[in-house]
């Protein structure tokens, strides 16, 4: 029975024992014995408490004794650690029950020990992990988390001392992450230690990516040659287990190590512990790294800000960053200066908004708000009012800074463009004034084709205007008697009709008009139209004043019409084109039905919809009210008599424009039963205006033409006669209009003087009095104030009527020159403004008579050259001051100027005091001096701007250099490979060579061949170094002739090994015969290097297709050469193309995000463009840059490199 029970208990999987009522153990089962390694006897003799962990004995004993003391003992439950046969303690739940017989008497004890070690340990680990992950999540500093981790593991695994080392950023050295209980000296020895698998287990763990156990280092062959075991034991440590710490990408971040004071290996639990906590350390380190990267990004931003400060001061540009979520703004010093804010007070949006000019504020804030909503950058011009009340014009650009947290952060710059704005405004104003004045002058100078005359019929005395002489091609000395003219100049066919009109008019002393042709002395046939009016003041005899207009141009069209009367339609078609050109429209008019038929040009002239059928009523309705009666009379006469007619009149078109038309109507002779006219309308507005303007300036012509009402109205010239003694004045209609006098009451001198401007009245009165006294002709300019309150500038010319000798009678004209005066005043104002602008913008003006070498300079020009103001300058003096590098450009300018070409150039001057000034000169030839080139121009001193640009360019170069070095640093391994290859050849060859020479007999030929190979390989290595040296070096940009294909090939050679390592296949597609470009070789190589490395990076994850990098050249249609870099990588979102080029935008963990931004600025400095596009119909992206292949001219090269 007892045996059966024993067997049964032995078979139980747990540890079971029994004891007598007094607690003396009388049985332990097989598991118990196996675990403890003791027999019942051994256990009893040692005392069972000896199996317990010393720390747990007291608790267990207390529970046991308490139970024994009870009368009816119950089950006991105690947790205690028990020693295993190998000395290891494990935690057990000791369950002990009293055994009773049927009567309830205590007959013994039975105990079962349950091993809860694993569970307890797991629970403790879980608790520790949870605690650590919470610390990580709370964003505690890495060192704190790692320290905590070590302490927790040390608590979980008594007797352990923990250490965490992480791998430095360069991947070469260890840094101590934590080691709270390791001796400080030992930690110090590990910090900065080079990773070397032969040194110790931590290095080996990193390299082998597996856990390394160094149970007894001094006897371990792996560290036989290392000083580490000695270091270790020197600190009383005996073993070290080291596990690699991986990040989420499975890269090794560092190691987690446990040290022991005794030489020993880890238990399974220890290993598990190490692995688990290495993982947690990985999470902690990775989190901390990303925090650091974030901070570094911010620091970079701050640094970039700092970097910009220098350039900013010079260019009056301030910069700032703005976190829209917190309104946290960081301003550069210059920004504070621009806004005139106290740098000690942090700026807020509220302060900024308050300083914006009230007129710009709402719009500015709206722009800002909508940009913030849309998360995009913007650019805005606006004004601010500084604390002391000054107004500044600012130009602000803001760009979004990519931010992982989703905040909208801006980086921005503000430039003070006040000076530029003022100069701009001044220039605009003065330019407008100049343009206006020019237009006026141009109009005045245009020749009218109207001549005027007076004709005393009885004496045949004629007084011709210059233009009339020109028309008739006759001089004052020629015989111009009317009979002579009729006999020899007037076209024979027309003499009769002219005389038919003249004779009855002369007979009646009436006004008349006549159209006729003349044949001039040069043989030209001209069509003239003469209007004659009798001078009403002269009653005792017949004196006409008249005007003759040369209508040849329009008559010619008419004539063409007449000669082809039979083929009317064809003529009409033929005329169409001519009409459009000469602004002549044609029409037919059936008098009986009043039907009109218009040509296209006619519709255009009258501004009538071509779909509309024109009517006579419509035509009448468009005619200017002042001309209506006259036109009606002409039409009525035509309707009645069927005679040809022509008339000059004004129309007002539907768009409100007033046009002057010259209309001719001729009866169609083939239609005899009723009257049908064919005719033309010519738009003569322009020549009319010109004519009017001319009259304003030609006093001679005016004197003879006073009574031509139509012309007067056009030229705003009124005419008058003035019988001085009687103060009898006879005014033309236009004169009444000018003075705004009532035509029904007679004007008198007191009335006239009454409206003359008070400031001018005495001068005008004096001139009139002088005229009255002497009878001399006079001419005065003055202002009047009309009854409508308008101030008008008038110009009056009066001359005595010579025919009236017995008393003083003046005839004269008064012109309203208000528009001219205003234009002049405006020009004067503009000039003043221009001077101010010139001072502000450091601009001087000059005139230059090229052939005479005469220069008229303003002060700035003298200052630029360093000449004493007022000195007479010569071209020789100037040329001595021109910078030698710019001489060619200046000489080219002079060459062009000699043949009258306008110029613009930026050049340098070596001032007489030795300083270099930059000048920007613009010259325009003065049209008014046609016989030789004389220029008027401006010269701006742009030295300050150039120097600021230089500084900025230098800063850009610095940045580009840093970027280049950064890019190259990623190639270190490949470059070592590139150099090692030929070196391997060289060393091997040298060995071979030596052996060949030492052989008996020496193999000289073989030795020569090997030596030759050495030479080749040496050159190859030196080529690599040379290429690198130029890329690493820094020097100012130098433009030279560059073959894109050649430099791309060089870059690819440098990259060959790196690309091979990354399993990238390179394909080149160089188009033969691509032209060279003028460029900076190193900068372009930097761009190509950058694009190729980006392409390789973009393909690093590609495993399902070929990683192909294609580099090619293309020759564009506009003479540009392109370099195309195409990859088969992950590509990019088409909408993100612009973002790619933003500074600090990066998709790479180690990227600075400036490569593409710098590449683009390099290409743009070459006058080219850099674009990115996702590949069509395939994965990957294509980056292309194009550069114009025309070599830049001297001038632009100067401005670019300066």
């Amino acid at each position, binding site marked *: 029975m007892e045996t059966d029970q024993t067997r049964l208990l032995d078979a139980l999987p747990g540890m079971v024992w029994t004891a007598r009522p007094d607690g003396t153990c009388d049985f332990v089962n097989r598991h118990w014995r196996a675990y403890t390694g003791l027999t019942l006897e051994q256990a009893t003799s040692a005392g069972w408490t000896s199996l317990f962990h010393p720390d747990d004995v007291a608790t267990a004993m207390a529970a046991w004794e308490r139970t024994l003391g009870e009368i009816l003992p119950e089950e006991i439950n105690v947790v205690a650690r028990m020693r295993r046969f190998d000395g290891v303690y494990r935690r057990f739940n000791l369950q002990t029950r009293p055994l009773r017989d049927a009567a309830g008497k205590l007959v013994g004890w039975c105990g079962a020990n349950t091993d809860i070690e694993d569970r307890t340990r797991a629970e403790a680990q879980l608790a520790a992990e949870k605690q650590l992950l919470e610390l990580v999540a709370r964003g505690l500093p890495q060192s704190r988390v790692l320290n905590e981790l070590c302490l927790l593991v040390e608590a979980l695994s008594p007797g352990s001392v923990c250490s965490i080392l992480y791998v430095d950023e360069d991947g070469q050295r260890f840094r101590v992450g934590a080691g709270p209980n390791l001796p400080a000296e030992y930690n110090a020895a590990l910090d900065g230690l080079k990773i070397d*698998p032969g040194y110790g287990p931590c290095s080996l763990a990193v*390299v*082998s*990516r597996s856990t390394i156990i160094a149970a007894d280092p001094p006897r371990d062959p792996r560290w036989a040659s290392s000083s580490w075991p000695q270091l270790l034991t020197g600190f009383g440590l005996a073993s070290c287990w080291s596990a690699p710490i991986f990040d989420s990408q499975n890269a090794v971040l560092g190691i987690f190590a446990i040290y022991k004071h005794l030489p020993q290996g880890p238990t399974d639990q220890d290993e598990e512990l190490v692995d688990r906590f290495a993982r947690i350390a990985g999470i902690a380190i990775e989190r901390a790294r990303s925090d650091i990267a974030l901070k570094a990004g911010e620091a970079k931003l701050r640094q970039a800000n700092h970097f910009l400060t220098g350039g900013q001061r010079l260019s009056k540009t301030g910069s700032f960053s703005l976190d829209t979520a917190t309104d946290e703004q960081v301003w550069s010093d210059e920004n504070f200066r621009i806004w005139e804010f106290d740098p000690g007070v942090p700026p807020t949006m509220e302060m900024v908004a308050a300083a914006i000019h009230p007129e710009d504020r709402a719009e500015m804030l709206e722009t800002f708000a909508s940009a913030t909503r849309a998360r995009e950058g913007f650019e805005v011009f606006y004004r601010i009012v500084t604390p002391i009340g000054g107004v500044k014009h600012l130009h602000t650009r803001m760009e979004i800074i990519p931010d992982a947290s989703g905040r909208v952060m801006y980086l921005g710059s503000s430039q003070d463009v006040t000076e530029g704005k003022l100069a701009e405004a001044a220039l605009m104003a003065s330019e407008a004034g100049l343009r206006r004045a020019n237009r006026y002058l141009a109009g005045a100078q245009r020749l009218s084709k109207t001549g005027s005359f007076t004709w005393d019929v009885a004496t045949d005395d004629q007084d011709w205007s210059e233009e009339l002489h020109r028309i008739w091609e006759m001089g004052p000395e020629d015989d111009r008697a009317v009979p002579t003219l009729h006999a020899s100049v007037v076209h024979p066919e027309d003499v009769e009709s002219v005389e038919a009109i003249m004779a009855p008019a002369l007979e009646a002393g009436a006004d008349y008009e006549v159209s006729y042709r003349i044949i001039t002395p040069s043989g030209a046939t001209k069509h003239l139209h003469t209007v004659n009016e009798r001078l009403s003041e002269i009653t005792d005899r017949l004196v006409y004043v008249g005007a003759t207009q040369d209508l040849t141009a329009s008559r010619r069209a008419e004539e063409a019409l007449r000669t082809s009367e039979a083929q009317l339609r064809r003529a009409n078609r033929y005329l169409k084109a001519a009409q459009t050109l000469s602004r002549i429209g044609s029409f037919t008019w059936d008098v009986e039905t009043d039907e009109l038929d218009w040509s296209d040009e006619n519709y255009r002239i009258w501004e009538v919809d071509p779909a509309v059928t024109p009517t006579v009523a419509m035509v009448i309705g468009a005619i200017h009210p002042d001309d209506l009666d006259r036109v009606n009379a002409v039409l009525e006469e035509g309707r009645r008599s069927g005679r040809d007619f022509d008339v000059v009149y004004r129309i007002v078109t539907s768009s409100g424009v007033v046009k002057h038309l010259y209309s001719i109507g001729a009866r169609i002779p083939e239609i005899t039963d009723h009257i049908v006219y064919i005719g033309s309308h010519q738009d003569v507005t322009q020549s009319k205006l010109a004519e009017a303007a001319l009259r304003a300036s030609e006093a001679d012509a005016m004197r003879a033409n006073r009574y031509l009402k139509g012309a007067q109205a056009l030229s705003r010239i009124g005419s008058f006669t003035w019988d001085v003694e009687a103060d009898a004045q006879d005014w033309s209609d236009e004169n009444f209009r000018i003075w705004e006098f009532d035509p029904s009451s007679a004007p008198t001198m007191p009335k006239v003087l009454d409206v003359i401007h008070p400031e001018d009245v005495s001068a005008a009165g004096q001139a009139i009095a002088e005229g009255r006294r002497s009878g001399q002709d006079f001419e005065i300019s003055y202002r009047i104030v009309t009854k409508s309150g308008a101030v008008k500038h008038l110009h009056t010319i009066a001359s005595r009527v010579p025919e009236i000798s017995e008393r003083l009678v003046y005839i004269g004209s008064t012109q309203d020159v208000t528009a001219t005066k205003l234009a002049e005043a405006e020009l004067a104002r503009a000039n003043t403004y221009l001077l101010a602008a010139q001072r502000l913008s450091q601009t001087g003006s000059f005139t230059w008579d090229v052939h005479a070498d005469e220069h008229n300079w303003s002060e700035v020009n003298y200052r630029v050259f360093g000449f004493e103001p007022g000195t007479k300058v010569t071209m020789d003096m100037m040329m001595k001051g021109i910078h030698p590098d710019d001489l060619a450009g200046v000489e080219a300018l002079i060459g062009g100027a000699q043949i009258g070409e306008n110029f613009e150039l930026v050049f340098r001057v070596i001032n007489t005091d030795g300083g270099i000034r930059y000048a920007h000169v613009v010259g325009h030839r003065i049209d008014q001096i046609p016989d030789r080139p004389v220029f008027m121009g401006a010269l701006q001193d742009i030295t300050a701007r150039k120097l600021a640009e230089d500084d900025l360019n230098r800063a850009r170069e610095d940045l580009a250099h840093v970027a280049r070095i950064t890019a190259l640093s990623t190639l270190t*391994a490949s470059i*070592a*490979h*590139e150099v*090692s*290859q*030929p*070196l*391997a*050849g*060289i*060393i*091997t*060859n040298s*060995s*071979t060579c030596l*052996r*060949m020479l030492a*052989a008996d007999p020496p193999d000289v030929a*073989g030795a020569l061949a*090997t030596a030759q*190979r050495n030479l*080749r*390989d040496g050159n*190859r290595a030196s080529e690599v170094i040379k290429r690198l040296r130029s890329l690493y070096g820094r020097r100012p940009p130098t433009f030279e002739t560059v073959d894109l294909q050649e430099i791309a090939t060089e870059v690819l050679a440098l990259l060959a*090994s790196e690309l*091979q*390592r990354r399993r990238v296949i390179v394909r080149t597609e160089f188009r033969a015969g691509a032209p060279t470009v003028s460029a900076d070789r190193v900068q372009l190589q930097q761009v190509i290097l950058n694009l190729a490395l980006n392409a390789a990076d973009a393909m690093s994850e590609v495993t399902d297709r070929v990683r192909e990098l294609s580099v090619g050249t293309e020759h564009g249609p506009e003479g540009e050469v392109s370099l195309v870099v195409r990859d088969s990588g992950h590509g990019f979102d088409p909408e993100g193309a612009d973002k790619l080029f933003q500074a600090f935008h990066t998709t790479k963990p180690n990227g600075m995000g400036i490569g593409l931004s710098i590449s683009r600025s390099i290409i743009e400095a070459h006058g080219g463009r850099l674009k990115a596009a996702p590949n069509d119909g395939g994965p990957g992206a294509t980056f292309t840059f194009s550069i114009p292949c025309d070599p830049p001219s001297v001038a632009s090269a100067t401005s670019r490199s300066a």
Partner: protein
Amino acid sequence: MSQRNLVSVVDDDESVRESLPDLLTSYGFVTRAFDSAEAFLESDDFASTGCLVLDVSMPGMTGPELQIELARRQIAMGIVFITAHADATVETQVLKRGAMAFLLKPFTEAAIVDAVTTTLGKA
């Protein structure tokens, strides 16, 4: 075994392909050079190759890949790896797979001659 005394040099770099066979020849080894792993596999020489001097990094099949391919074809030959690119991971891997040596370019005369001699001695 007597016919397996050929030393085959596989390297895409011309300098090595020219210089190394000359040196080894001067020590009395019979050598053959190939510019790629593929060329070596296509030749009949691997049957007689006793020592393969193999570059790690080559376009197309790499040195370690050739090592694996030979193992797959169950062709045993001693391999001496040479490389211009120090990489402890690769070194560990190829040595574990039974490579005889792993030499970093540029290597000394003694190093390569020793490695080849040892390899042929074992073959």
